[in-house]
Each structure stands twice: as C-alpha cells, then as structure tokens.
C-alpha cells in the first residue's frame, strides 16, 4: 500500500491527499466537462438527474451519515425548494435570485425542523420528519393560490442572462456546476470544526456536550444545511420535472432518497454519489435492459421494480456498508496488488447493541 508521506500538518487539511488523487479527479473533471460532446441528449438528461439526486444525497449524507440524524422527510424539502423556485420564477424573478431564494427558504424551514430534533431522537425523529413530510404535502395541496393545488403548475424553463438552458447541454452544465459546488462546500465543512462536531453528535451526544458542543446549534445547523442543499436540488429538480404536483413529493420518494445514502455508503460523500447513481440511473438502466429481454420476460408486469428490489437486496447482502465500502475494498485490492490477502475482505461476525 502507498502511504502519502506527510511533511506538515497542513497536508491533512488538503482536499487532495496525493498527486494520484489529483490526477484521477482531474481526469474525471475532463470527462464530465466534455460529456455533451460525445453523449446524446438522453444520457445528458439522465446524468443531470443523477447530479440533482447527488446533491440531495450529499445533503442527506451530512444529516444522516455524519450527524446521525435520520430524516424520512427529505422529499418535503425537495418540494419546498422546487415550489419556491417555480413560484418565484413565475413571478418574474431572475433565475439565480430565485435559486438563492429557494435555497434560503428551505434552509430556514430545515432549521425549524431541526428544533424538535433536540428532544426527539432515533426512530422517533425519523417519524417526526415522516409526519412533517405529510404536513408539507398537505400544504402543497391546500395552498392553491400559490401551488395550484392538486392540478399543480408548469415550471418556466431555466434562463440565465437571457439565455435559455432548456437544451440538454445547458441544463447539464448547470447541474454539473451545482454538484461540484455542493461537494466543495460540503468537503470544506467536513474538514472544519463544524464537520467534526457533527460526527461528535452522531457518535456520542454526551461526550460532545461535555466538550462544549452545543447540541441545539449543531443539530439545527445540520438540518438547515441538509435542507438547504436539498431545497437547492429541488429547484433544479423542478426544471427536470417541468411540472410540479404535490404527489411527487411523497413519503415514498423520501424513502428512496434515504435509500441513496444507505446503499451508497453512510458517512462518505462518495457514498452519496454512488447512491444517486443507484436510485437515479439504475431504474432507467433496467428499463433499457428490458428492451433486450425476450418478450415473455420483459412484458411481465412489475418486472422493473422487481429487478430494482432484487438488485437492492443483493447490494445490501453483498455489501451491507454500501457501495462505497465495496469501492474501498477494490481500491485496496489494486493498491496492494499482488500482495492482497483474501482474509482482508472476509466479513467478520458482528453484533449490534441497542442505543436505547
């Protein structure tokens, strides 16, 4: 295995830990930037969607993967962002301003929701966010003058400085830029005192308090940032969907969002992205695969969610710590090649203990 040789403390603070990191991420950036040149509209659309979900994934990862607060209500924040953005746009607000507005409002509401989290923990918190999701859905339905109620309303196409970004390429770059920004900001946060404080909340509230971590402040911060990112993604999501209706932002969608961070791998930004690919792109891949299956199989009702469920189950059975866990193992395998020991990958028996 290679160990980067450290010469000063600042190196631990750097985003790229080694020059090979720099190389690979640079390559990735090149690939993503040039994508519209060699990929058709279909794939651009799908990749944009994965980016949008990726931003939600990052937001949820901060809250659930780092701060240890579970939310089964994030579709509500997505909805708040989407509606706010679409409503602001319809009132003639410029694109960027409306994007900021949507983010700000969901951040605020997120901070508000973070408040109950001071008292409520674990599954009860999860259920409080679950209830919150229903209440928000109710508001979307009932506040007809703003949201158009159940009939919903169409979202204006993104336009920046008079240029429309509806085309696959333009929207793709907006999403790419957004997710890169989201990742950078999040990485900054995570290598700062706040990021550490979130981890402290997750692992031991008692010890965190004793070290001076204000639970109230950091829980609300975690909720606010998470909701903010999700609301921001919601604004982009509004464009992607094109038409908003309350029954998009359901509890089932929230569960899928949560699925992302778990399947991707808790506690890592990579995990959020892997999860977004799983939830965002996999169903489409299954749909494409169905085109090549014999009719007798492809025409089976329920085949798509069935395969999705099967892959989900297999992924978790195979790698309970998420796709990122597997990724690390593969990386490890190559970095020690050919010295790799089989035992290093063998699963240990492990045991859980109640947090109650």
């Amino acid at each position, binding site marked *: 295995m290679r160990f980067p040789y450290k010469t000063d403390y600042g190196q631990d603070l750097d985003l790229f830990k080694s020059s090979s990191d720099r190389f690979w991420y640079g390559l990735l950036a090149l690939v993503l930037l040039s994508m519209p040149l060699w990929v058709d509209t279909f794939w651009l659309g799908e990749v944009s969607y994965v980016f949008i979900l990726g931003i939600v994934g990052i937001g949820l990862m901060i809250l659930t993967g780092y701060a240890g607060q579970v939310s089964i209500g994030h579709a509500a924040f997505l909805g708040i962002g989407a509606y706010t953005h679409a409503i602001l746009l319809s009132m003639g607000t410029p694109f960027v301003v409306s994007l900021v507005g949507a983010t700000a409002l969901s951040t605020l509401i997120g901070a508000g929701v973070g408040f109950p989290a001071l008292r409520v923990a674990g599954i009860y918190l999860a259920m409080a966010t679950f209830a919150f999701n229903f209440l928000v859905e109710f508001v979307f339905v009932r506040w007809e003058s703003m949201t158009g109620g159940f009939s919903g309303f169409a979202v204006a196409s993104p336009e920046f400085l008079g240029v429309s970004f509806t085309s696959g390429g333009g929207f793709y770059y907006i999403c790419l830029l957004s997710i890169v920004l989201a990742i950078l900001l999040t990485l900054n946060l995570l290598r700062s005192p706040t990021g550490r404080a979130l981890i402290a909340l997750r692992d031991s509230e008692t010890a965190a308090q004793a070290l001076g971590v204000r639970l109230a402040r950091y829980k609300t911060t975690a909720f606010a940032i998470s909701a903010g990112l999700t609301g921001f993604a919601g604004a982009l999501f509004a464009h992607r969907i094109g038409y908003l209706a309350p029954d998009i932002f359901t509890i089932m969608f929230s569960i899928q969002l949560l699925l992302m961070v778990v399947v991707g791998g808790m506690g890592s930004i990579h995990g959020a992205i892997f999860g977004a690919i799983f939830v965002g792109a996999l169903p489409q891949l299954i749909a494409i695969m169905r085109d090549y299956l014999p009719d007798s199989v492809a025409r089976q009702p329920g085949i798509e969610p069935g395969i999705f469920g099967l892959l989900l189950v297999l992924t978790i059975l195979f790698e309970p710590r998420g796709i990122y866990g597997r990724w690390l193992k593969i990386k490890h395998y190559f970095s020690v090649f050919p010295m790799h020991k089989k*035992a*290093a990958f063998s699963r240990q028996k492990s045991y859980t203990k109640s947090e109650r």
Partner: protein
Amino acid sequence: MSEPILKLTNIESSYGPITAIRGISMSVPEATIVTVLGANGAGKTTVLKTISGIIDPRKGAVIFEGKAIQSMDPDAVARIGIAHVPEGREVFPLLTARENLMMGAYARSDRKGIADDLEMVFNYLPAVKRLEKRTAGTMSGGEQQMLVIGRALMSRPKLLLLDEPSLGLSPRLVKEIFELIVRINGEQKLPILVVEQNAGTALKAAHYGYVLELGRVVMEDSCERLMEKEDVREFYLGAAPENVHADIRLKRRKTWQ
C-alpha cells in the same frame, strides 16, 4: 494428568486485516484456574472471544472436552457449557437485574436448580439482590459488573471465562470476587480461565498463568514460578523501585520484545 478440558492449538485470529493473535496455544486443565496476563492490546480479550465463537479463528483449533468448537456459533458454544463474562459490562439495559440473571439460565430448564442458583448468586453478591428490580441500564459501572458475573454463574457452566472481572470494582469487592472464584473452583471443581490486569491478585488466585505480548504467548508457567520472574515482577506486579521524579522516568524495556 487427564486431557485438559479446553485446549487451544496455534490459534490465529484477526479483525479484518488486523491480526490480533498469532499462533497461540494454551490449555485449561480440569478444575484449575488459569490466568492470562498481558499489556493492553496484547490480545487477551481476543483469545477469549475466539474460544466462545464470537470471532472465528483464521487458523488453529479450539478443543473443548475433546471436540473441536472453533467454528461454532457463540450461542452453541454457550450451550455446551462455556460461560463468558465479557469485557465492558454487556448487560441487557432495559431488563431488570433479575431478568438479566434469569437470562443467564436461558439454556437450562431445571426450575429447581435455577432457583437454587439464583439464591446462590444473591448470596455471593448481596448488592445484586438489593438491585433486583432495577433496570440494568441505569446501574453504576460496578453494579453492572457484579450483575454480569452473577449472570454467568447462573448458567452453571463447565468452564468459566472471565474477562477482567475486577474492572471498576471496589477493593473490597475485588477481594470478594477473587475469593468467590477460588471458592467456586474449590467447591464445584469448575475450571476457570481469567484475564486480569490486577496481576497480583490473579496470580495469587490462579494455578497456572500465561503472559501474552503482541498476540503471542511469551511466558507460561505455574503461578508461583511466574511470580518469581523478574519481568513479571516489574511490569505486572509493579515491584520495581518507584521513580518518583517524572523526569528520570527512564524505564527498562521489556526483555522479550
């Protein structure tokens, strides 16, 4: 001498890529108390976990009463008569002390025997009786430790594994616990394998001892002879002259490293 009740041959166990013990052989003869000493991280706990099936060893065999048990599930190991008092007070936090004790007797069905043993435990550990109806999660560290020891006794084991039983107990209780160990061993001929940081007390109570360093057995002998050894005396019994002044804390390193 007859076959030992428990025999480890060349055990190697690891946590993922970290190898914690490397080729350990030891045995616990019938009716004896065996103690394992070692610094932090030497692998003592790992040895006990390997015996009770919590970890599957990568190599080697664990023979209990002539049967290889190294790949059995921990619950099966418990049912064939190995009771384990784990490190770190593993109580059932929401059950009462009494329910915790009764869980110790889970694998048994002789009502009378269980009732007798409950009396016995209350007798040995009167503090536990006082706490009978309290939920274990709210008890103090030492109270939990007593509870866990009592719980292990409830299973009427053929072999008792104790991982640092004196952890967090008051001096008086440490004495009592070790008296209890010796007494049970004497009365019931129960073989006991005890890991202990409190080396003096452990060596006095036990018949035979092993010293572990970095996952290997570096010394083994009867306890009387171990107590004679220079290194044991210095590092485990604290017999070296005290260097009161911090600056001249130049310590002799262990010779066997």
